[in-house]
């Protein structure tokens, strides 16, 4: 039965109170452990299509009569368009339309960052559109850019009001503590670098708008475009069958969609608007840089008595306050905690969610200062974490938390320390470090799925969700196959089109599996019930003794019939199962947990760092596909290694101009940078969470990577690295600082 509830909805750590119509989730969870299909490795259902180059991405679509748009983006970080003229541009070969500030949503005459969209041109070819952009005459008033986050704090320039959280009495606790550590950490700006750049094709059909877009949220794009263009939402159809990476940057419609929609309206033809790689590096979002001024205080026995953090998020010209303070508030049992988070508005490209936004940055600071504290306390870092283990989130119990079990499973990796350190020879020093992980990932309602079964005995899951490359189509296939007692290859999934299925969750916040999985299972169960009803009548059996298994309707009295024989009776009739995601457990905090142990080698003469091994142990509830899950973990760790060691969006502070707009200058990890990765997932269903007990896995693996590596570097060299990326300069700086400190402690004159 549908029920109206008032509930908290969480996406990427942002909560809002909403009214939700939810349907009760009546199914019991499956017992823990591998089932027939669920819990066993499955290769990707779209694997061959993608590998053979047959999958059609937005980038591959070409509509009849399609025009191409090019966007004029501000070359200045802060400016005003005094005047703009398209006269010459419109006369150029192939040009069909031009729009300027105010003529499409998100085109502005007062750009606040380099790359902000100002105008756009549609032409027969992309080359012609690009060439015509050069002919647009703009008279700029160039303004002084503000790029220094601390200066923005001083000027009170924020994208939203600073938020402050306090429990207990932090100052008193610090004053009374036996050991206090203070340190400043910095994290850099990181680019998502999705391989398929942001792009859309828009086509008007009468008063309906079709949008083909590379997106993580079909329904979000539908609603956002409908709202801005004043259309009823169902007049907007959004399609994304295959998409080439998003990592959080593709949750919205973005400027390219509004540009394509307006140019398509003006020309009466479909218009593609695709970002180039250089535009992508400027204007598609980023993980914002942060400054973290932290204090940790403990008693001599290791009990944490106070944690304090002043966080500055360099959010950019727009964006939201990613919860950099989250780990400090949530990871440990500490009575006195105070955090202040200031999201500053400066003349840099706006942030967008990027794989565990805030928590990746905040975990670096928190888990590093915890190790600095452990060193001062002369305590084992793992013991310090166990000692301060949180058993509840304030007043709220966890729906499940098995972090202690993760720590236990980490022991064998942690105990490799002596062996690893003993490998040190000459300038190469080896060490081991660890860091804990906390993050959201519980998903939530609403999300819906249908399951269709015809007389051929094949099932099709229909839902307008998207598979952004994480393998969720495969996961849904497994769940439906399990519930219907069918082999995997007898189940298809139709997704990626708002006109061809019901509302589905966004694919961000590690939410696709925990949101969609239970809906798919409940739709499959509804279809299974109908198959059993038909079989009971056909074979004159009681429904309660029938079940679906191995492609058969099985009776507990020993008889069985192939499912295709039962549904073969349908001819052209179809069984239609309908399912919805039930509510999250009331009054409970649904979170994911884990720990990673990293092994590194550092050349103390050159500052070169090699990550040699990462063991990742995570608690994300039931694992539906162990093969796909290990790929998610590896991918998260590899992105984390890029974040830790090589990736850095460089900005000229005087002009606000991005210096590395290409993939040769912005350093992504290559296959040669990959360490040995050991993945262990606890695979313990969360008994309070849905009919599946699964949480999300997309984000957790990237969260602790930087801190685990930095802590391993400290173990290897004694140096406290505090700034990402840990470039050779930062490594050598930290080594010099450690040397100076050591000399001072020995009473020798400090090196200059």
């Amino acid at each position, binding site marked *: 039965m549908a029920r109206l509830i008032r509930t908290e909805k969480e996406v990427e750590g942002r909560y809002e109170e909403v009214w939700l119509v939810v349907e009760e989730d009546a199914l019991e969870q499956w017992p823990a452990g591998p089932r027939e299909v669920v819990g066993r490795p499955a290769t990707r259902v779209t*694997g061959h299509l993608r590998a053979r180059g*047959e999958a059609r991405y937005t980038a591959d679509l070409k509509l009849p009569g399609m025009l191409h748009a090019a966007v004029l983006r501000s070359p200045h970080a802060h400016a005003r368009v005094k005047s703009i003229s398209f006269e010459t541009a419109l006369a150029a070969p192939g040009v069909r339309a031009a729009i300027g500030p105010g003529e499409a949503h998100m085109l502005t005459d007062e750009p606040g960052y380099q790359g902000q969209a100002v105008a756009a041109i549609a032409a027969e070819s992309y080359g012609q559109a690009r060439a015509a952009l050069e002919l647009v005459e703009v008279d700029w008033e160039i303004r002084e850019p503000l790029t220094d986050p601390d200066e923005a704090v001083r000027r009170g320039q924020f994208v939203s009001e600073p938020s402050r959280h306090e429990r207990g009495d932090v100052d008193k606790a610090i004053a009374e503590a036996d050991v206090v550590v203070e340190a400043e950490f910095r994290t850099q700006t990181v680019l998502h670098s999705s391989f398929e750049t942001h792009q859309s094709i828009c086509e008007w059909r009468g008063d309906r708008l079709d949008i083909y877009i590379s997106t993580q949220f079909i329904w979000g794009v539908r609603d956002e475009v409908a709202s801005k263009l004043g259309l009823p939402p169902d007049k907007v159809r959004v399609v994304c069958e295959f998409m*080439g*990476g998003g990592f959080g940057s593709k949750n919205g419609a973005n400027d390219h969609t509004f540009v394509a929609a307006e140019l398509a309206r003006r020309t009466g033809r479909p218009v593609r608007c695709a970002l*180039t790689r250089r535009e992508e590096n400027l204007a598609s979002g980023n993980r914002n840089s942060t400054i973290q001024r932290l204090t940790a205080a403990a008693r001599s026995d290791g009990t944490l008595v106070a944690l304090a953090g002043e966080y500055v998020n360099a959010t950019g010209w727009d964006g939201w306050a990613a919860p950099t303070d989250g780990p400090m508030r949530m990871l440990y049992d500490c009575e006195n905690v105070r955090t202040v988070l200031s999201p500053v508005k400066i003349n840099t490209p706006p942030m967008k969610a990027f794989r565990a936004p805030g928590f990746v940055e905040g975990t670096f600071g928190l888990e590093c200062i915890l190790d600095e504290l452990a060193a001062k306390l002369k305590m084992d870092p793992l013991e310090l974490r166990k000692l301060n283990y949180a058993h509840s989130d304030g007043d709220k119990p966890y729906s499940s938390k098995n972090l202690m079990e993760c720590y236990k499973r980490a022991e064998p990796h942690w105990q490799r320390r002596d062996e690893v350190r003993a490998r040190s020879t000459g300038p190469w020093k080896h060490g081991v470090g660890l860091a804990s992980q906390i993050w959201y990932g519980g998903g939530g309602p609403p999300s819906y799925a249908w399951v269709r079964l015809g007389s051929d005995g094949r099932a099709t899951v229909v839902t307008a969700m998207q598979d952004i490359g994480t393998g969720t189509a495969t996961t849904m296939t497994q769940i439906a196959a399990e519930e219907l007692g069918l082999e995997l290859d007898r189940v298809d999934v139709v997704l990626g089109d708002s006109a061809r299925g019901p509302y589905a969750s966004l694919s961000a916040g590690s939410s696709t599996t925990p949101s969609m999985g239970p809906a798919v299972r409940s739709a499959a169960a509804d279809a299974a019930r109908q198959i059993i009803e038909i079989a009971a009548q056909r074979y004159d059996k009681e429904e309660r003794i029938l079940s679906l298994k191995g492609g058969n309707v099985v009776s507990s009295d020993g008889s069985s019939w192939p499912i295709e024989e039962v549904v073969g009776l349908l001819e052209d009739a179809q069984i239609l199962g309908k399912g919805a995601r039930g509510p999250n457990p009331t009054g409970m905090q649904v979170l994911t947990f884990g720990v990673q142990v990293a092994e590194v080698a550092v050349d103390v003469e050159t500052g070169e760092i090699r990550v040699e091994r990462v063991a990742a142990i995570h608690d994300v509830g039931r694992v539906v596909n162990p093969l796909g899950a290990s790929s998610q973990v590896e991918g998260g*760790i590899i992105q984390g290694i890029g974040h830790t060691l090589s990736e850095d969006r460089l900005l000229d502070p005087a002009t606000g101009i991005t210096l590395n707009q*290409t993939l040769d200058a912005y350093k992504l990890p*290559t296959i040669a940078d990959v360490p040995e990765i050991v993945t262990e997932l606890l695979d313990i269903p969360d008994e309070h969470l849905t009919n599946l007990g699964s949480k999300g896995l997309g984000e957790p693996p990237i969260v602790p990577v930087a801190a685990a590596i930095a802590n391993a570097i400290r173990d290897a060299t004694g140096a406290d690295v505090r700034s990402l990326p840990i470039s050779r300069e930062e490594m050598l700086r930290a080594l010099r600082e450690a040397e100076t400190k050591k000399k001072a402690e020995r009473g020798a004159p400090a090196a200059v």
Partner: protein
Amino acid sequence: MALELHVNGDAYELELPVGRTLAETLRDDIGLTGTKIACAEGHCGACTVLLDGAPVYSCITLVHTVGDRAVTTIEGLRDHPLVDAFVRTDALQCGFCTPGQIVAASALVEANPHPTSDEIRHGMAGNLCRCGTYPKIEEAISTWQG
């Protein structure tokens, strides 16, 4: 400017402006969209194709310089055992770089059917993957013959 292009065993008579890249030609003029463009300036490897068996970045190869060399794209390698190996080992996530990875890997195993880990890492370092499928790409290539 007229040219004849040999792609996956088929000959194409084309009339194309000077300056057109091989990647644009394959995707837009011939309709072989398996070759992906991710950076369009020779930095990532997504557009890798073979010219007489040697891997090149088709986004920075001008089509008029190809001459009579045989072009092989992912469409010409769809039945290569590497395709099954990539799927079996889960060596793809979003899949946008995957055709280029497989084309590059096909040249590697053609020259060296049993590459070591170091040889795979050296041979494949010109093909980036943002999803981070590298461990499984290495596994796929080291077990490509099944």
